[in-house]
């Protein structure tokens, strides 16, 4: 059912395209949505903002039919709807692009798009018609994509286009985009924004769920801010500013910029020499990377995910064997040392994946905070762990880092992303190692926790430690780093001092364009 592009013209003054009134959703004792009202006009790009746990995801799930509200009504173009499944919602013109894409990797683009609504010829799929429909749709919405390409071979940005085309193929008139820019380069983001504007101009309505303030300012018409399951503010984008939005989101005023003094780099504390990681039968994942981080500086490692950053970090901390090169910590060669020996030599590590690498979810906060320190006094005595000392240490760290948790014996699996990340950060910083490797330290955590973690990284720098910050978030790299390395296809393309770096140049480098001689 590919649409023919002509949407019915609105009869002014029409009812809002989408309106939700008094939406309530409870999970046990938790009130996830507390009488939420949301109204969105046709052709509008509407931001839904809020910290983690504010109720955005629940609300979107309700609007897309994945969850049913306990109370409240949803109206589409003035008509009440009751979605019992996503299929109901799709049938009424809702479309959603999930943060984690829902694509079939081994299938082609056109198969992904027509899946579940295939054009038929007899009992067979009408392959020609399907490919044509996809190509037409892609051309009309300027979403360049090859219908026959296999999804697993596509970049993240193109995969997102496939997701959008999936919704448009089903003639979605209201499109929910859940954190769509989290995985994009700045250039990919700009082209997404162009598509969003085009869709809105066509009369489609976009609900844009995001954490990122500058994107809200750049693209949206209006903003609805949620906090603790309630709508705390409705704003017109043109009449507000980032500071106001943050205050609405957090209920307090949060510093959006990172204050850090001049850097006073000292001796090199973390070094990689010609570090190489081979890929079976392909280009090396990491190709002879040389890297130095000195005490008292933060070096940012930027790049689109999947360009060798994770492998490089794993090799530095000892989780992956090198195929060539050396790793030095404080001038000592640790290339042949295991993780424990490297930690002892002076590496602390905040891993990208806090849930499966950074912590043991079923274990208590006390145990998680003790890990890595459990072999030596004061936590271990005569080969046995001193439970009282572990608990004492945990209470002190929980207080110092402001982790919101019922008690130190509660399992960390119950914590929100931001709080879990605080546990990991607390443990790694309590190591007081000369070199700190922080990998995506603020991914998926809310504004308040970001402010806190950034502050901690800056404090490490001030204490004369070497910090390697790996992040796909350019604004974070730009705010914190003294120098910025850009990785592309396993190599460092450029080493840019902070004052010479901006989003545009870094974005081009991240896309693999070598710096032009200017």
């Amino acid at each position: 059912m590919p649409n023919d592009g002509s949407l019915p013209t609105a009869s002014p003054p029409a009812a809002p395209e989408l309106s939700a009134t008094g939406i309530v959703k409870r999970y046990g004792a938790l009130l996830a949505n507390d009488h939420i009202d949301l109204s969105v006009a046709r052709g509008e790009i509407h931001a839904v903002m809020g910290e983690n746990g504010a109720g955005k995801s629940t609300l979107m799930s309700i609007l897309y039919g994945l969850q049913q509200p306990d109370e409240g009504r949803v109206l589409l173009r003035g008509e009440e709807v009751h979605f019992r499944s996503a299929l109901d919602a799709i049938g009424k013109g809702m479309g959603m692009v999930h943060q984690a894409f829902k694509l079939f990797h081994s299938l082609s683009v056109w198969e992904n798009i027509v899946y579940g609504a295939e054009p038929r010829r007899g009992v067979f799929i009408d392959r020609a018609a399907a490919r044509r429909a996809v190509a037409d749709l892609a051309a009309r919405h300027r979403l360049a994509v090859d219908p026959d390409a296999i999804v697993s071979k596509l970049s993240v940005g193109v995969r997102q286009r496939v997701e959008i085309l999936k919704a448009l193929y089903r003639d979605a008139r209201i499109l929910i985009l859940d954190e769509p820019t989290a995985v994009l380069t700045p250039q990919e983001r700009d082209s997404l924004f162009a598509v969003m504007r085009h869709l809105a101009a066509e009369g489609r309505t976009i609900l844009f769920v995001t954490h990122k303030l500058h994107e809200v300012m750049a693209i949206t018409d209006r903003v609805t801010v949620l906090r603790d399951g309630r709508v705390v503010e409705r704003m017109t984008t043109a009449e507000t500013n980032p500071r106001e939005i943050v205050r609405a989101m957090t209920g307090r005023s949060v510093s959006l910029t990172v204050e850090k003094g001049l850097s006073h780099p000292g001796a090199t504390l973390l070094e990689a020499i010609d570090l190489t990681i081979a890929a079976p039968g392909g280009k090396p994942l990491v190709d002879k990377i040389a890297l130095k981080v000195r005490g008292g500086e933060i070096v940012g490692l930027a790049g689109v995910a999947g360009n060798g950053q994770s492998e490089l970090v794993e090799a530095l901390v000892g989780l992956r064997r090198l195929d060539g090169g050396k790793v030095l910590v404080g001038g000592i060669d640790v290339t042949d040392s295991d993780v424990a020996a490297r930690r002892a030599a002076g590496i602390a590590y905040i891993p990208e994946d806090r849930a499966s690498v950074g912590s043991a979810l079923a274990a208590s906060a006390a145990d998680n905070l003790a890990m890595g320190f459990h072999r030596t006094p004061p936590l271990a005595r005569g080969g046995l762990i001193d439970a009282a000392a572990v608990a004492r240490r945990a209470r002190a760290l929980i207080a110092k880092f402001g982790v919101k948790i019922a008690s130190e014996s509660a399992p960390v699996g119950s914590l929100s992303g931001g709080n879990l990340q605080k546990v990991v950060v607390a443990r790694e910083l309590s190591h007081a190692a000369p070199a700190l490797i922080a990998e995506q330290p603020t991914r998926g955590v809310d504004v308040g926790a970001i402010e806190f973690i950034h502050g901690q990284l800056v404090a490490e720098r001030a204490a004369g430690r070497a910090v390697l910050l790996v992040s796909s978030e350019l604004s974070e790299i730009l705010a914190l780093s003294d120098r910025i390395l850009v990785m592309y296809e396993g190599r460092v393309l450029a080493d840019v001092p902070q004052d010479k770096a901006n989003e545009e140049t870094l974005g081009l480098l991240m896309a693999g364009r070598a710096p032009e001689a200017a």
Partner: protein
Amino acid sequence: MSGLITPFLMQSAVQAITPILLASLAGVLCGRVGVFNMALEGQMLIGAFAGVVGSYVTHSAAGGVAAAMLAAVVFSLILAYGATIFRGDSVVICIGMNLLASGLTAYLLRVMFGVSGTFSDPAIVSLAKIRITAIQDIPIVGWGFARQTPLTWAAWALVAIVSVVLFKTPLGLRLRGVGEQPDAAETLGIDVRAYRVVTVLVAGALAGLAGAQLSLGAVSVFAEDMTAGRGWIAVVAVMLGRRNPLYAAAACVLFGFADAFSVKLQSQGLPNQLTDISPYVVTLAALVLSHRRRTRALVSPEVAAATPGGMAEPQADAR
């Protein structure tokens, strides 16, 4: 070589391929919807037993085949519901089913017919062979297919049918999607559990056919554990064939020939304990070789990570 491949060898190879082929098609279908079916051995055994019972009771081979399919489908309900509605681990369920099938058929043999070990009776009608004199002198293929049961023909027709359904129809596209990324299918309005339940039951019917071929094809007898590992060989064929019916059929051909050759070698004077292992040796060798080839052709770590378990085969789905 000409002395090695004889009409008799071809006929016994094609006969040996049939049950494995039917079972591996069942495995392919289950694998495509994301249910790892290791219970083929047990499903076949139930089919073989019910086939003999059906034939004995109805005095007709068709009755036996119908009973085999029905019994295997009912038996497959355990996997169909266990692995979906009850969210059980399919490996554990399948191990249980295989043990249950072995014990249950031995028990029923004693209770129903008062015998243990094997059951044969003149009342059991075996499957008639289709004789095609026109092709019996065509070397290799003609030799192989000139005197086979309808189930052999059905098995090869099903290879084509399953291929077309999987790769040319909306149903096939949905099945492939359900196995690869169930939550993506769900968001597009596909009832993943229903697709899985029905597919596992259809696969059960195919495994039942495989069992009927075993007990009513060349013989008309049921023996305890008469599947003798053929279900497991079918599981391997599914993995070697990367859940593609054509590739799985090719693997079955390989195993069928190994089986036929083992009989041949026996007649050359080699001890049968030694020749009996040849299909399994070939299976192991094929597994090791294909694994080596595949790890070398590994595409990207991301794709590998997206496909847990040995069953999943992300990229190379030929169509």
